[in-house]
């Protein structure tokens, strides 16, 4: 079985703008094992 999440989150206002602190970032990598409650992103 599989679960797919689709969600809206903040992105940088301009391309290449890395200063935006509110930008969403994933904290996982492909192939990582993850468990319920562990952070996917912030």
């Amino acid at each position, binding site marked *: *079985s*599989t*679960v*797919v*999440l*689709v*969600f*809206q*989150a*903040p*992105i*940088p*206002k301009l391309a290449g703008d890395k200063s*935006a602190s*509110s*930008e*969403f970032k*994933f*904290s*996982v*990598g*492909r*192939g*990582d*094992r*993850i*468990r*319920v*409650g*562990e*952070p*996917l*992103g*912030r």
Partner: protein
Amino acid sequence: SSRSEGNSYLVPGATMATIVMLGALHARRLYDDKKLEEARDKGAELEFQPDVKATFLRLLPLRSISRFWGSLTGMELPIWLRPHVYRAWARAFHSNLEEAAKPLEEYASLREFFVRTLKEDCRPIHSDPCCLISPVDGTVLRFGELKEGMMIEQVKGFSYSVSSLLGTSSFLTVKAEEDVQQESIVQEKTPRDGNKKSWWRIALASPKVRDPMPTCPMKGLFYCVLYLHPGDYHRIHSPVDWNVLARRHFSGRLFPVNERATRTIGNLYVENERVVLEGRWEEGFMAMAAIGATNIGSIELFIEPALRTNRPKKKLLHSEPPEERIYEPEGVGVMLKKGDEIAAFNMG
């Protein structure tokens, strides 16, 4: 005498040949899988390669097989046998039996054991209010931001559409109408004729949504695909605090969804039986699709216990629209807290 002697040699010979052939095929498959695993460890992308087995799977009554598997695993086992069966399952699929909430003897069937709850504090919820947590135990297959075209890559060389996966997304239509002003700025050459369909097209072409407040950050659409192995804990939890506004049930096929199937069966997630929950969280849109497979064909929704999936149908039309329910009160729906149990995947 010589004929009967010949026959006695012929039968073992044919049997031996079959065994050798099957052994060779199995060895070849193990070798291929090992090579793929090595390539993946080195960072190589797996490519889409439809095969004969995938074509053959389309001919099989997978939904009936799934329901038969469900009834088989739902049979009550004698108490003395239960720990042996569940330990064998755990050994085969690497489940952690120490996390099970109840003693093994108390799970009447494999089906019941499969959707077991866990002991308290086995899955602490990350306390950071800004973080989005994993709704399941599993492996991260894909993640990223949805770009123009709104497609998620199944494997290299094959992608599927998000709008097909989730069904007609009311969010995208509504947002497109709300952001008509901003979108028309982004795409100056697009005519503003007030036609809903045109805004839908705009939204699909440009998933970035501008907030009316210029000081607020722009929003993008992100996705994450998580695969649950047969031995994993099979309950789904809420990834954030959110309001579930609608549910869609797609009565589809039940192909396997393992790594091999993702490489060989196109549109796997869009064709399989699934339940989609759609709503809003602090940052905007949120949707979650729980996709079934042959062995785990039905999805139980705790916020809607009456929902039944993987039911027999006389004729299944894969193009038929999903069955949709809007949760009351409209616009508020069902409020869920981060970590709340939402659903479970059941055997069969």
